[in-house]
């Protein structure tokens, strides 16, 4: 994935399209010519396709797999089944994936991630980065308008306002924290937005595309007292229409959307159907068009259903074991804090059977790995130093080396989710077979989260959304005094990793060299697995055969329906 070099302006998507090459082919050529680009930065259709036709059920969901779907048609209502209810429509405040799915359809992000796992522009058309990476000048699309009732053209001033809004300390936005290091932001002119950093940040775009992007809302609407949590006003392809909580949320097509071609459908209706079997029934009966979160154990039910397409792709999502390397908390910890020893952490990684976990938890629909990035991501390194199946002997040897005999470890999990519960149970069995004395504790999700936050565990099962780059992942590895204990990874390699990460990686101008530094950082993180990665679960959606121009995005919360249309 080519990233912008300092002093160079990124390319625009239209340039790419005119070559007749796919973006990936083009990016490869551009990269080999030494012209770094953030390919596909603007104007790309929502599903990552160059012609707007989309994946059409080919089962891979990549840009190169366009189906023979014909000309897009306008009109119709697209019904989407969600696995949980909606709770908060404000993209600056929300944390739940279902809410983020709506936000993705309702707003525009500054940057986002495409189907090839590359960071591309959203509202940002192109970027100029200065020599040392301390200033990012973003050129904002012209002709972008806000939704009614506050229709007017978006300017760079509005983006600056949104930055002010998110960083307002009284709003406690979860999006606020990762921006430490930004010195200033301002609107240079109507369509130029500038961010300055204390130190070079050559991957800021991925930071902004990470954790589901940075949506822009109407300052006028907010100043008029409208609550973005319940009636968002943004610039996205679909306008918020109505929300009957627990029942359905309706978005309608924004006729003045800045992209000429899409959206195509008149209306999108999101319906929460918590029961997995219920979602399957609805798609098989044709009562909904797209099902998000197809339960892995029910996937086979769709095999014989010709009218339903199952679309599966690699995802950024990570299932892992978070291992507590600190002595900051005494509560609910094993005697002598075994997990503070690197050998014990490695023993845990050797003890678990990742292959079996993938088979049992995901029916094989996941990739067992020890890496943070899935195959297909430019950050992916094929580095798996520990056993992928269980190796209890190697684990015992490491325990001996650390001076532990049957160390007690608390393992916290949540029974509220099948994947987490099963991961906890299999891990406990694996650990016991490798000479540990695990104490598996299953909690309700809120309590599990509380315990984790308080650092009251030795091992915690965990899932992460993942990230498009190592810099974006940096948000999960920060160290600050105010952070909860489980963030504070003060272990042997801590200083080295942070130094390589921040001081060397983020300021390295040569993209290849930067990737090489980050690969080294990752190898160190895998060697001493504070987060012991188990697998990347596949992202799976199911959709009706009448749905065209849709393919599954590597991020579950990015339901890419911008260029989707219904074959009526």
């Amino acid at each position, binding site marked *: 994935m080519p990233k912008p070099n300092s002093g160079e302006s990124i390319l625009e998507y239209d340039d790419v399209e005119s070559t007749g090459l796919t973006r990936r082919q083009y990016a490869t050529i551009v990269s080999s010519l030494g012209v770094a680009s953030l390919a596909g930065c603007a104007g790309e259709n929502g599903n990552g396709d160059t012609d707007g036709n989309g994946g059409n059920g080919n089962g891979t969901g990549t840009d190169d797999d366009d189906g023979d779907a014909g000309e897009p048609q306008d009109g119709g209502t697209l019904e989407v089944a969600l696995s949980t*209810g909606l*709770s*908060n429509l404000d993209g600056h405040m929300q944390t739940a994936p279902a809410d983020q799915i709506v936000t993705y359809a309702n707003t525009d992000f500054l940057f986002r991630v495409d189907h090839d796992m590359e960071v591309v522009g959203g509202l940002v058309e192109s970027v100029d980065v200065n020599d040392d990476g301390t200033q990012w000048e973003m050129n904002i699309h012209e002709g972008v308008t806000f939704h009614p009732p506050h229709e007017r053209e978006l300017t760079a001033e509005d983006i600056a306002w949104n930055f002010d809004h998110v960083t307002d300390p009284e709003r*406690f936005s979860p999006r606020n924290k990762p921006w430490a290091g930004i010195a200033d932001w301002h609107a240079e002119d109507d369509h130029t937005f500038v961010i300055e950093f204390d130190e070079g940040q050559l991957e800021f775009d991925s930071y902004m595309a990470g954790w589901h992007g940075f949506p822009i809302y109407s300052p006028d609407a907010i100043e008029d007292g409208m609550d973005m949590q319940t009636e968002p006003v943004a610039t996205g392809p679909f306008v918020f229409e109505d929300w009957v909580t*627990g*029942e359905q949320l309706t978005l309608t097509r924004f006729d003045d959307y800045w992209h000429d071609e899409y959206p195509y459908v008149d209306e999108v209706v999101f*319906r929460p159907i918590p029961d997995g079997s219920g979602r399957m029934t609805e798609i098989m*009966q044709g009562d909904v068009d797209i099902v998000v979160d197809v339960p892995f154990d029910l996937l086979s039910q769709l095999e014989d259903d010709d009218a339903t397409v199952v679309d599966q792709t690699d995802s950024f999502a990570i299932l892992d074991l978070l291992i507590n390397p600190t002595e900051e908390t005494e509560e609910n910890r094993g005697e002598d804090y075994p997990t503070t020893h690197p050998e014990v952490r490695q023993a845990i990684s050797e003890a678990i059977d990742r292959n079996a976990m993938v088979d049992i938890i995901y029916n094989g629909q996941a990739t067992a790995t020890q890496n943070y990035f899935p195959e297909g991501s430019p950050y992916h390194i094929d580095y798996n130093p520990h056993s992928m199946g269980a190796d209890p002997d190697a684990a015992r040897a490491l325990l001996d080396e650390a001076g532990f005999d049957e160390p007690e470890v608390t393992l916290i999990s949540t029974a509220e989710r099948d994947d987490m519960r099963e991961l906890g149970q299999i891990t406990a069995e694996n650990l016991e077979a490798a000479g540990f004395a695990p104490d598996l504790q299953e909690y309700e999700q*809120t309590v599990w989260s509380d315990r984790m936050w308080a650092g009251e565990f030795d091992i915690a099962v965990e899932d992460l959304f993942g990230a498009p780059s190592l810099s974006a992942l940096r948000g999960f590895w920060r160290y600050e005094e105010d952070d909860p204990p489980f963030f504070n990874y003060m272990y042997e390699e801590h200083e080295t990793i942070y130094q390589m990460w921040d001081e060397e990686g983020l300021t390295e101008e040569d993209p290849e060299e930067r990737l090489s530094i980050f690969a080294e950082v990752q190898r160190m993180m895998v060697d001493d697995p504070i987060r012991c990665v188990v697998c990347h679960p596949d992202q799976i959606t199911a959709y009706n055969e009448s749905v065209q121009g849709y393919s599954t995005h590597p991020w579950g919360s990015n339901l890419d329906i911008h260029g989707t249309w219904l074959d009526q």
Partner: protein
Amino acid sequence: MSILSYAAKRLFVSIWVLFGASILIFGIVHLVPGDPARVTLGRFADREAVEGVRQEMGLNDPLYVQYSDWLVGTLTGDWGNSLISNQPVLTLIVERFPKSIELALFALAIAVVISLPLGIMGALNRSTKTDQATLFFSQIGIAIPNFWLGIMLALIFGRYLGVLPASGSVAFTEDPVQNIRHLILPGVSLGILAAAVLTRYMRSEMIDQLNKDYVTTARAFGHPKKRIVWKYTLKNALIPYVTMLGMQFGFLIGGVVVIETVFAYGGVGQLILNGLLNRDYPIVQMSLLILAGTFILVNLVVDIVYGYLNPRISY
């Protein structure tokens, strides 16, 4: 004591019961571990933000202050906002409560339609195959968990036969036919248990009445069987049945929590469940208080109606 003064006395007692229920609900909801501030901010939030949100939500105030604020708000119509979505609690409950009541009433109607004839048939054909079939149905009905029944019905009628919708709800005012179609599967799932309980109750009450002396006397006087059953015994058997009906309605109101989740039926049950999972105190407290109030009110009405049905009772 006149029926009016009896009703006034019962109402006064009911208010105290509701007050007690409010303390219980508040206490239990706040005793459950889990921090709504962290739910709002996600598990990667820092301490400062969590503390700030806790302060904003008023969660750092002493519990008695939080309780009295809630109580005053409840009485003055200021039910506050959801801690998660920031939507007014009043609006959320007004949107959803009628749907749950509609579902519970529909389930109750199903229970009555099934239990009355089955109970009577069982009693009139005691120890026959018909009676055994009635008992078998009530045993099965009580034993089957209603969420499992719901899933099975959704699979059979929703997926394989495709004759009824397996999820969602439609307002009666919007489309009466679709409204009924969406009610059938959750209503049956919910109503079967009540039907089973009421069938057994009806059967035993009818048998009890049929064994009474006045029935023997009526037979001796040559009254036709139909008149004895429909005019004398059924009337008397219905008196305790109505009381049981009131109690069952209360249980059905509680049962909607699970069934609404299975059928993605947007009632107050789902609101409570999501509220509990998210530790959305204002939503859970108010919804539970209203359910408790409904239960108390139904029992009050049943008690008063009982007086009308049974002339031997004087207040």
